[in-house]
């Protein structure tokens, strides 16, 4: 998909969402203000992630060339690539969709689809939220779930990559 096409589709997508809001407003008018309040709450909570992603994109554009991405996150990246994806997913913060622009750039630079998939999967493990998970479900459960998810993120990444790359060829 060309950049201009993606941009146009993005605006069409936003227009469809606005139409959904108008329809929801007609059917259930009292849902709109709480939704917009919720949107504002999301924005207040994550505005700094915008800045972080913007900063990372700038650094990526300045320092990183496709050959570097290909070496560390491309086909020949090996175990190091998987480790970077898993750790990156765990330490990344904010909503998942905030990371799509950065992942889009990395994908264009040659990052493996499996690594992007593993990154998105391990975003489920949030060190800051582990105490709360322990509080609700216990320490043993939290440790087992975290370890199982890390292992499964790699297996899931390999499967996604095989399917996506096979279809693309």
């Amino acid at each position: 998909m060309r950049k201009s096409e993606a941009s146009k589709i993005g605006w069409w997508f936003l227009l469809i969402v606005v139409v959904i809001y108008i329809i929801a407003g007609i059917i259930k008018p009292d849902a709109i203000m709480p939704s917009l309040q919720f949107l504002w709450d999301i924005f207040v909570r994550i505005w700094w992630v915008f800045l972080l992603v913007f900063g990372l994109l700038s650094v990526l554009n300045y320092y990183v060339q496709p050959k570097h991405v290909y070496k560390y996150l491309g086909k020949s990246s090996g175990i190091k690539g998987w480790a970077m994806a898993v750790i990156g997913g765990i330490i990344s913060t904010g909503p998942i969709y905030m990371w799509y622009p950065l992942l889009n750039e990395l994908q264009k630079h040659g990052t493996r689809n499996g690594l992007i998939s593993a990154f998105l999967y391990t975003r489920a493990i949030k060190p800051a939220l582990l105490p709360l998970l322990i509080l609700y479900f216990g320490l043993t459960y939290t440790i087992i779930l975290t370890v199982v998810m890390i292992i499964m993120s790699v297996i899931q990444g390999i499967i996604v990559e095989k399917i996506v790359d096979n279809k693309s060829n």
Partner: protein
Amino acid sequence: MLAENTPKQAVFKAAKAIWRSFPILLGAMLLVALANTLIPKAAYGYLFFKNAILDSFIGSAVGSVLAGNPITSYIIGGELLAQGISMTAVTAFLVAWVTVGIVQLPAESILLGKRFAITRNIAAFLFSVIVAIITTAIMGAL
């Protein structure tokens, strides 16, 4: 390391990439906000049948449709456990909540490719059930 862009070009390119993604991100945030408002939290318990395997798929499906802060999923998961829903179903729900994104699927498709987004979300849905079964099996064995 040789730079391809000047610092000014690098920042300009980053700003362009963010601007290109802006309508998609705003649309995804609006959808998440609307879904959270329209679906009452208390309604989730009625969706389960108290059958571990069937409920784990239902848990995964419910977690796939909903989106938001993981803390909300812990609170709902705790409530479901208190209502007698199995640990496998609750685990599938918790995992799907953060790994599958039906609401964000349009945004993911536009920015990362339709094939990738659909394949990844289907795989993550199935894996949320697998992770739940393995986790509770290990818990049971301890």
